[in-house]
């Protein structure tokens, strides 16, 4: 008797469980948008967060994401999405690109996008070809970074500014290239000799890298070391890496920081008062637009390149420091922006 009661309880609870589990969230018309994130985590206040925010903002899709603890998670995460019937799978980050391409080739009916890479199929000798169902979402962040570099060179009191990256991916170094060249441009125009620590576009191997996108302690150590060397504006390029430094610097007032990807003024919990600007990369907007294309059956594998022109990249307002930036410098930066758009200023040389 007792036994059968127990059994009934088990059966009842099982049906309860499975009943809830299979209850479908039926919302017609919407597409299933799935984000395979990079290793920084969804709360990196930067490009993973930006991508996820864009996906959630998309009104034409139901979005979900999977975080990756290490790069070994990329492939199974994507595979999970394929099995779940995702219609648009977005790989967030340069590192995940090869896995996205592999999956795209195996599943030609599913649409893919990859943030920060062209999403091409490359062989061992780096001969690359486009894949029809993969859209690369890339950004000429050096255009905005160039402006930030010029701004920093104009703002520094010590004559030293600094930058460092998470891992030396091209999507990271492009920020640093633009930043360094912008500063160099300032020197050329003004005859000054502002030094950029941590990065020299001519010698990328000697650049300062944390070695990961998650080791905040090491990033803080690097920031402090740059402060010691006299840098008073620092640009950490690597998602969440710069957060402890921003918090520490807000207290010590030793240096200003520049954030990347999404406007740090709205995402940082500490450090707003020393945030000079953000080199914004509209990842969210780009994902939103791909989702809209897929929903409207207009998807094409043609690469999207974010620039100053299409507002895919920009520099954010100066917020709290607005009053500190001289009006003359502001107008020079605007001129530079127009010059980049017009092609009279080359950011990549």
């Amino acid at each position, binding site marked *: 008797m007792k036994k059968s009661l127990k059994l009934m309880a088990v059966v009842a609870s099982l049906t309860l*469980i499975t009943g809830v589990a299979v209850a479908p969230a039926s919302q017609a018309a919407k597409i299933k948008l799935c984000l395979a994130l990079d*290793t920084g985590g969804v709360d990196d206040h930067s490009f993973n967060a930006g991508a996820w925010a864009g996906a959630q903002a998309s009104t034409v899709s139901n979005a979900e994401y999977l975080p990756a603890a*290490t790069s*070994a998670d990329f492939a199974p995460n994507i595979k999970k999405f394929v099995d779940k019937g995702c219609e648009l799978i977005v790989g967030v980050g340069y590192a995940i690109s090869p896995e996205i391409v592999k999956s795209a080739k195996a599943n030609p009916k599913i649409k893919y996008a990859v943030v920060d890479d062209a999403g091409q199929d490359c062989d061992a000798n780096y001969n690359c070809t486009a894949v029809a169902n993969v859209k690369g979402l890339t950004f000429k962040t050096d255009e905005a970074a160039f402006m930030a570099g010029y701004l920093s060179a104009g703002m520094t009191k010590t004559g030293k500014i600094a930058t460092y990256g998470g891992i030396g991916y*091209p999507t990271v170094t492009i920020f640093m290239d633009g930043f360094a060249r912008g500063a160099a441009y300032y020197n050329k125009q003004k005859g000054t000799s502002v030094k950029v620590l941590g990065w020299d576009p001519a010698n990328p191997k000697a650049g300062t890298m944390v070695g990961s996108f998650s080791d905040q302690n090491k990033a803080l150590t690097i920031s402090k070391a740059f402060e010691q060397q006299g840098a008073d504006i620092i640009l950490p390029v690597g998602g969440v890496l710069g957060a402890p430094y921003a918090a520490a610097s807000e207290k010590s007032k030793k240096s200003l920081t520049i954030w990347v990807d999404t406007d740090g003024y709205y995402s940082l919990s500490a450090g707003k008062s020393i945030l000079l600007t953000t080199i914004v990369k509209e990842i969210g907007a780009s994902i939103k637009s791909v989702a809209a294309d897929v929903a409207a059956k207009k998807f094409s594998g043609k690469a999207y390149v974010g620039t100053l022109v299409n507002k895919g990249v920009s520099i954010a307002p100066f917020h709290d420091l607005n009053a500190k930036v001289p009006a003359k410098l502001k107008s020079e930066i605007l001129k530079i922006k127009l010059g980049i758009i017009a092609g009279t200023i080359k950011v990549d040389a």
Partner: protein
Amino acid sequence: MRNSLAKFLQAIKLPGLSFLMAFTLTGLIIAISDAKVIAKFSTPLEFIKSALAAIGNAYLALFQGAVYDVNLTKGHTFIHGFYPLSETIVIATPLILTGLSVALAFKAGLFNIGAQGQFIFGAIGASYVGFHFHLPIGIHILVAALVGAFFAAIWGGIVGLLKARTGAHEVILTIMMNYIASYFILWILKTQSFLRPGRIDPIAPEVNQSARLPLLAGANFRLNFGIFIALAAAVFVWWLLTKTTIGFKFRAVGANGQAAKTAGISVPFVITSTMMICGALAGLGGAVQVLGSTYSLNTDIAGSFGFDAITVALLGRAQPLGTVFAALLFGALHAGGRTMQSSTGVPLDIVLVTQALVVLFIAAPAFVRYIFRIKKLNASASLTSKGWNG
């Protein structure tokens, strides 16, 4: 037969109960971290119902992600439903090897925290042989795996030699060696010979087709020959420990080093050779990961395989078979956590909480005994005196 069953039950009792408690606590955390559940706090019945539903959903998803998922069979054969199980095995494979590395060290009285570094060297060796050379299928795999294991054996052996010669503590040594290894891989991936053409970020070229471990269930599954290597390694460790004179020395030194020394067993030999074999095992883990699953070397190749290995070995009570099961359980947690996150929104990190709780309970057996003893005392006194006075 009944005797051996009883023995088996006795052996898994503590890990089993630890797991049970860890899952119960994790369930509570899942429930109270769910806003929808908390919203119903004012109506107790609804609250309990929604809490149970949240826990049930999460664990069902965990199961679907780790063992079998009927949803995957749509448009495929029923076998495709076992895809999650194959993922569990793929994740467990390197973990079995690193777990064995730690377990074997435990048996010889050594605490090998260095599986992480040894794994890295195994991966480096296997990766280099895998992409740099062109060898016939089979031989290529063998050479790549052996070179990986050899590198790692040297790496582990250095620790053994230092301890045997100077008496330095292996825990400190292996921790430091882990640091060196993780920075070494950062450096070596920046060198010209390891950079992938066209890339400037630290990722090595993919290993050649001839060096890849054969897939066991077709291209749709990542399940590969590595699991057989891991299982063979488990059998090897079992054989070494129970059937050989070397294993006898290992166990004697592990159980009572002083008595072993007095009876003429060379403790320095045991320490050095144990650490070499442990290194080779963990290195094989790295090799299998590169040759069977990621195909290329990158900075986070080792993930947390070397550290989870300690938990796995503890959970498996440092027995080869136990370690295999513990690694499979961890693989299942990891694979299932993915599905749990994607279908119920319960963060993947909750799996880490479960793992941590398991370790906690394993490390504090007295606590587990205490809790369950109370229960048993109420139920039946005779059971208490038999099983629980440990």
